[in-house]
């Protein structure tokens, strides 16, 4: 069959239609163990929320409305769009031992369980209470989240890099090009290729030419 059809088939069949997404990334061993090929589990129904209406982002502070840690506020660490899940730091957690061997009992860590969006509510910065949130446009035309109760804009949390680098506090190392040198414009447009320009600059003359060759 056509090559494009074959390639798109391979890309689409990466996950079956009824694949149950969990908290582990799908390519890890744990996820492959839970969802081996040929597994058919009962379908999990997920509210379809379009991308424009999605209000909770990584780094937001939210309050839990239901469950073990009801009433507590926490920071969002991870968001799972395919299951409408949110994981908060240290909240709604059960405790377990990881890395245990035959003689060592392992490290006791808190493993957070995901919370659905319906069990979560964003917090109004003015009175730090849970509110409903809608999307509105500012005077400048920027689309922002607005608390329906007070009308206060809830700013989006700043995106933090996973390697922990903060741009303003970065100190250049010995192999880093300084900012002024990186932004300096030294290119003069010319019709010569790079190789021809280097040959002119170094005074290399090449009069030999290759024999004509043919390939089929």
């Amino acid at each position, binding site marked *: 069959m056509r090559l494009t059809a074959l390639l798109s088939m391979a890309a689409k069949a990466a996950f079956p239609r009824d694949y149950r997404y969990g908290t582990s990334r799908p390519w890890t061993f744990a996820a*492959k*163990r*839970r969802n*081996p*090929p*040929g*597994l058919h589990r009962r379908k999990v129904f997920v509210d379809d929320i379009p991308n424009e209406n999605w209000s909770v982002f990584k780094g937001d502070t939210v309050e839990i409305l239901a469950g073990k840690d009801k009433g507590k506020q926490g920071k969002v660490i991870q968001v799972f769009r395919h299951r409408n899940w949110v994981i908060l730091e240290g909240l709604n957690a059960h405790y377990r031992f990881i890395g245990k061997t035959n003689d060592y009992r392992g490290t006791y860590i808190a493993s957070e369980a995901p919370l659905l969006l319906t069990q979560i509510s964003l917090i109004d910065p003015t009175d730090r209470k849970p509110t409903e949130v809608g999307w509105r446009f500012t005077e400048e035309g920027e689309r922002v989240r607005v608390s329906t109760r007070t009308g206060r804009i809830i700013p989006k949390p700043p995106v933090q890099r996973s390697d922990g*680098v903060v*741009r*303003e506090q*970065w100190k*250049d*190392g*010995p*192999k*880093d*090009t*300084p*900012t002024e*040198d*990186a*932004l300096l*414009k030294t290119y003069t*447009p*010319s*019709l010569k*290729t*790079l*190789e*021809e320009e*280097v*040959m002119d*600059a*170094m005074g*290399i003359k*090449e009069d030999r*030419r*290759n024999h004509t060759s043919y390939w089929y």
Partner: protein
Amino acid sequence: MGLLSTLTRGLIRGADRMSAFTSKRGPRSNYKGRGARPAGRLTCSGKFVPVREMIPEFVVPSLQGFNLKPYVSYRAPEGTEPTLTTEMLFNETVAPHIKRDFEEGTFDKNNLEKYGLDPEQKGKLFKLHPKNFVR
């Protein structure tokens, strides 16, 4: 046995058939290279004669006053230069000369070599089409 463990066992059992069979796998008799190109010619007597032109040589111009380093500082903002297109290159290199000649009245459409344009790629060392250099 449960369904899940039966299906999982299929993952664990068996060799990996899909990865490439390179020279690092197989028995001692499996001798194959990794795609290095020859640097000379094998003569009929069995002797290998290296050919200077087939051995790669790095041609590096003088790096005096060259301040660029391997990495760029995280503090540098994104550049504002637009990506160079063929139209921009033409407008900056050739178009002013053509315009000046046209206004003087000396523009000759059969003599475009004086602006740097090549009529054919036949005698050139670095041909643009078909591209005969590695970049």
